[in-house]
């Protein structure tokens, strides 16, 4: 499988990446070489091997349901571009 330029453009748009034509072509070459690696791995016979969903063969540790965080709004909002009445402001989004 290999990606077309249109595929790369679509992935870039989904990831909100602005890319010019040159960058798109470079990304296409790089992504296709990754697909080559995947194709090699796909060729390995994995019959009878349970798929892993994480590189580490460990289980998730769980946290007790106890409040540990305090209000740090002021600190967090000090670096926000725009805030108003405690809200983060972003360019209008209307569905």
């Amino acid at each position, binding site marked *: 499988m290999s990606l077309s330029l249109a595929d790369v453009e*679509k992935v870039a*748009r*989904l990831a*909100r990446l602005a890319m010019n034509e040159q960058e798109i072509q470079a990304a296409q070459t790089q992504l296709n070489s990754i697909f080559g690696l995947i194709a090699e791995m796909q060729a390995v016979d994995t019959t009878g091997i349970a798929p892993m*969903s*994480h*590189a*580490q063969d*460990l*289980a*998730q*540790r*769980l*946290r*007790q*349901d*106890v*409040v*540990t*965080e305090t*209000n*740090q*709004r002021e600190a*967090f*909002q000090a670096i926000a571009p*725009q805030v*108003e*009445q*405690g*809200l*983060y*402001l*972003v*360019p*209008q*989004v*209307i*569905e």
Partner: protein
Amino acid sequence: MQWEIVIGLEVHTQLSTNTKIFSGASTAFGAEPNTQADAVSIALPGVLPVLNKGAVERAIKFGLATGSHIASRSVFARKNYFYPDLPKGYQISQFDLPVVGQGALTIQVEPLSGNAKPYEKTVRITRAHLEEDAGKSVHGDSQGMTGIDLNRAGTPLLEIVSEPDMYSAAEAVAYAKALHSLVRWIGISDGNMQEGSFRCDVNVSVRKPGAELGTRREIKNLNSFKFMQQAIDYEVQWQIDTIENGGKIHQATILFNPDTGETRAMRSKEDAHDYRYFPDPDLLPLEISAEWIEQVRATLPELPQTKQTRYVNDLGLSAYDASILTASREMAEYFETVYAAVPKDAKMCANWLIGEVNAQLKRDGLDMAQCPITAQQLGGMLQCIADNTISNSGAKEVFRTMWAEGGTADAIIEAKGLKQVSDSGAIEALVDEIIAANTDKVAEYRAGRDKLFGFFVGLAMKASKGKANPAQLNDILKKKLAG
């Protein structure tokens, strides 16, 4: 032309944990904007999610309560989309390996129209998975800008997905209500619909009976059962009209406008459904041991379905009564306390609860938890009916007084002089007087005018100021009139 309606539901229920699903920030409702939005909730770079045990426990409870498969190993995945109320750029959810697998929920359906009888139905549950809620967008205050409150971001949700097993708005509403009651019953969610703790997405399609499933449209974010019914009714009619007029249904996400009662398609974003799920590398697989499942099972209360069966088999109640008495845990607990006071009269308890108590609650706009009469008070009153201290009509007066002013049944009966006359000597004397004073009517009765019996009962009741024990009075009157 006959059309068949097919409905499936996706319900997002907020879990009643103290903290968020992946961080120790509080989930309390109504806090000042962003005061509960910690570093994880606002997705500061470098932070890592740590799964909340309480959220997993609640998911297990739900799985057990619906007889569902609980995965010994499930996986969290990233669902990618850009929206400002989700600052990471993805929602952590579950995809191909959810925590809860197939199960089922049995519901009682009350048809909305005509004289159709209530019936029972089982709706299959496809799966239920854990995920995080998004923040809230606040429109309007600032020109050209949207305000973002991330307090809700990261609140644990259990998304419960049903099979398309419902064939009418009534069935969809009955399923949603049963699910709503169940999550509160087992204590995994407060179910507060105004606060968004229980939100329903409804997938609707229509088809000719026996045909393949039609194309569905998904009505998003319904937070009232009434709106759900209205939205489904409108949408079904719209789809039928569209097809009958030669049009085609296109898959779409739609919104219901309660003000106009109409549904309309959301502007469809080209890439809206390209979520590119993949396992979240920040989270390891969730493992649930059989031992843990058994520990959780031990904390489950008796479930509504089990109670219903017990009420029908052991107490002799109808399936309908049993389903109403188990509509909420408060109701069932109230019923059981009342019943403990008069253990021979389950049906009488059911009648009073389903009749007087429910009707009065409805009139006053209260729910069971706010009932001004305690189960002990009502139980005391029913004891007085059972031992013939008061008649049914006397009981209604006691009930009204109790509702408005409080007090025990004994005190109200005493104060209002409602004690029933069950002394047969006193009733006989009263009946003798009436017979003596109405010889002409007695003669007519004896000549075959049976209808006059009611006339004598009326007179006797009046003479006793309504206090004569009705059953006893009937017996004595019959005997004496027969001559």
